[in-house]
């Protein structure tokens, strides 16, 4: 069982609500859900849609071919009816009636029934009812969902609308699934927020920027319960500098933004590194340059964050692969930042940030917060504490100001002595640079090798990173019957883990980087770090995410050339 429903309409028409209702009803039915949102950078009008896919096995990506198309306006019919196949069903109000080339069109009195239910605003709910009937849904599980979503005042009218819709269609598809383990349904941005909460983040400063804002609003919604501060800064420069100040003062601190905001954080990134202040930054990519496509997806900022800021310093970059990975890696990022006293950048993107996926609940039992702060033995010493003490492993014992007896803590952005004072000495400079860079070498040992998917010792190897993980995994599933194919999917991306890359067998005939950008940024990094060149590349840069099917098709194209 693997179904795909698209609901589309103009912004402000309630597309989001219809999607939310469907997602939750599906989740409560116990099926696996993968729901992807495509929206424009406007508040009313335009064309937005959700593709809600559900199945009886875990789903890793959206799909483009539809089983059901719910069109809340004529544009949706026009734009999406080409995604219908012979077995599909189109549901739309009869006023949009037109010719479609494939599938069964149900031109229903949605608007009329909505008015009958109480208000024309429930047109979408009527459509949901019609869809539920198509799948012969268990109604008992529907009401609680409706109740949780709608305020009492409007629950009744929506209930009526749903029921009216239910009468408009006949069962057509067959749901097949076994009751499964309890699941959570979560977006990448929520998972990042939750991972940060688990890690004990207590100070978040940020500036709104699509598609990263979800992280901030998620954390802001937990301010009271978690007992933390989430503050909107005047700009991204303030956001990162505030987070650094908070971290220096002893809090676990975080900020998030998208590429444009990250531009303004670049100097602060260097400040975190130079002052050796732990910091976690989530960069949720959208297509650039600059304003670009504010609400769409791309993996175009890897090269940028790799070397952002002047001079040289250690940093860790983790590309988030799916919501589950996002949770655990965000948690890990805080520990790594503390352990190495460095900035850690989490690279997400709009696709990952916004899609909903059902996954098993996170396991909190294995998580331990490791602050790596120096203890009393350091601050009770009689000598003056030295923030930047040269040590064997390049990590100076870290104390928190006002929490270390009569010691004081001096942090400095100039090149500095072990005490943190400005210096101009050549030898101190060399020692401090070595001390900083030494931790990059340690990081190289800490990094996790990419996920390995598909066959062992395959002839065709796909290389991917971040949110392409799911689609690539699905592509491999589609391809592995016919081809000797596998994939390496990078999460830790800088320093680049190169063991598996270097272990690739000589029988590899095609090495294909699969990326959501125009230049192949992972491929460039691999050339630089491992001297390995990809033979082919699959690049998408129109702002739309790759699905498993898309990748599979493109791989076949490449092979057949």
């Amino acid at each position: 069982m693997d179904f795909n429903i698209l609901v589309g309409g103009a912004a402000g028409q309630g597309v989001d609500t219809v999607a939310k209702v469907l997602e939750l009803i599906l989740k409560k039915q116990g099926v696996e859900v993968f729901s992807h949102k495509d929206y424009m950078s406007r508040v009313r009008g335009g064309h937005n849609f959700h593709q809600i896919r559900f199945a009886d096995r875990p789903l890793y990506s959206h799909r483009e071919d539809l089983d059901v198309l719910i069109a809340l306006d004529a544009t949706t019919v026009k734009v999406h009816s080409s995604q219908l196949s012979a077995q599909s069903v189109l549901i739309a109000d009869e006023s949009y009636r037109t010719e479609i080339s494939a599938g069964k069109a149900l031109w229903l009195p949605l608007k009329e029934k909505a008015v009958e239910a109480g208000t024309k605003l429930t047109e979408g709910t009527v459509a949901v009812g019609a869809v539920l009937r198509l799948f012969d849904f268990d109604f008992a599980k529907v009401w609680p969902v409706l109740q949780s979503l709608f305020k009492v005042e409007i629950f009744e009218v929506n209930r009526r609308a749903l029921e009216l819709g239910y009468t408009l269609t006949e069962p057509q598809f067959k749901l097949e699934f076994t009751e499964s383990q309890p699941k959570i349904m979560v977006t990448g941005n929520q998972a990042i927020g939750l991972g940060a909460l688990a890690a004990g983040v207590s100070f978040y400063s940020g500036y709104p920027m699509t598609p990263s804002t979800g992280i901030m609003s998620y954390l802001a919604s937990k301010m009271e319960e978690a007992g933390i501060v989430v503050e909107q800064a005047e700009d991204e420069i303030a956001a990162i500098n505030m987070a650094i100040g908070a971290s220096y003062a002893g809090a676990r601190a975080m900020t998030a933004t998208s590429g444009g905001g990250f531009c303004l954080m670049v100097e602060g990134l260097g400040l975190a590194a130079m002052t050796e202040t732990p910091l976690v930054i989530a960069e949720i990519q959208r297509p650039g340059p600059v304003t670009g496509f504010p609400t769409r997806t791309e993996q175009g900022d890897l090269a940028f964050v790799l070397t952002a800021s002047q001079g040289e310093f250690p940093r860790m970059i983790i590309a988030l692969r799916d919501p589950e990975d996002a949770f655990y890696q965000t948690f890990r990022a805080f520990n790594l930042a503390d352990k190495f006293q460095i900035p850690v950048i989490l690279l997400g993107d709009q696709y990952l940030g916004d899609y909903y996926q059902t996954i098993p609940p996170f396991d909190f039992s294995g998580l331990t917060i490791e602050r790596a702060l120096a203890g009393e033995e350091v601050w009770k010493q009689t000598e003056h504490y030295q923030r930047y003490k040269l040590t064997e492993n390049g990590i100076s014992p870290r104390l928190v100001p006002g929490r270390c007896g009569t010691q004081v803590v001096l942090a400095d952005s100039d090149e500095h002595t072990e005490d943190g004072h400005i210096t101009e000495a050549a030898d101190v400079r060399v020692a401090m640079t070595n001390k900083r860079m030494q931790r990059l070498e340690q990081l190289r040992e800490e990094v996790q090798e990419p996920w390995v998917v598909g066959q062992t010792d395959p002839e065709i190897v796909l290389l991917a990173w971040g949110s392409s993980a799911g689609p690539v995994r699905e592509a491999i599933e589609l391809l592995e019957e016919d081809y000797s194919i596998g994939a390496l999917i990078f999460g830790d991306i800088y320093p680049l883990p190169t063991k598996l890359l270097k272990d690739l067998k000589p029988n590899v005939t095609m090495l294909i980087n699969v990326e959501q950008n125009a230049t192949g940024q992972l491929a460039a990094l691999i050339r630089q770090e491992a001297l390995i060149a990809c033979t082919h590349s699959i690049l998408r840069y129109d702002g739309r995410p790759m699905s498993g099917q898309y990748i599979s098709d493109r791989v076949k194209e490449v092979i057949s050339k």
Partner: protein
Amino acid sequence: MTTEEQSQKLFDSDDEIAWCPGCGNFAILTAIKTALFELNKRPEEILMVSGIGQAAKLPHYIRTNGFNGLHGRALPPAVAAKIVNPELTVIVHSGDGDTYGEGGNHFIHNIRRNVDIAHFVHDNQIYALTKGQASPTTALGQVTGIQTKGNLDQPLNPIMLALAAGASFVARGFTGHQEHLINLMKEAISHPGYALIDILQPCVSFNKVNTHRWYADRVYELPKEYDTGNLSQALEQALEWGEKIPIGIFYREEKPTFSDHLVWLADRPPLVDRVWEPRDAEKFMKELE
């Protein structure tokens, strides 16, 4: 020992001072040490934050906690540190370029936040560390190495700007009135909320217009009768700049500080002491089920 000597002892840094002989910054350094001593503060209770510039070197020359950050960016880390640990006395020392130029946006918006910090601007009306370009407070028409045809931009009035942005404590000091300055500092540090002192500080190397003499001839202390609680009057008073330059507290008002708004943290320990286990976040996951 005098207070000054005692304070020197308590707050003495072992770093060599790189300022020019005769620089007004020395008077500010002495004043802040004395003020802190007289307020019975201990080095470890203080956090000095600065940006980059001559003024911004101050955290190196005093033994307290210190965060010497980026040019223009002293305020954001300062307020954040204060939010995380309200027990710290947080003081920002930075230049006029740092504060009103590169850092102008943080200046305005941190006034809005009204976090309980003191902000001491060493206003020498010039970019000194970079060798003498116009700062936002340099007079119109003043010639420098870059303003070769005279400064084209009219100067800011920091007092006016702070008042207009809603600051709860606004003052001007002068390095030549040491006792007065020490008192201002003590008031500013004790003020609950954001407190600004714009300190007229002669730069002997690069500002040959606004010299010690120039200031000394013009400044006068606001009289005792001056009502520091009247905003309209403060705005009027702030307009005075030229033949006579008032120093002292222009305006002071007690209003809720940033932490007063954080009601949900009221009964909790400071964020720096927050106790937290990963499991404490599990409840948030339940909402996603």
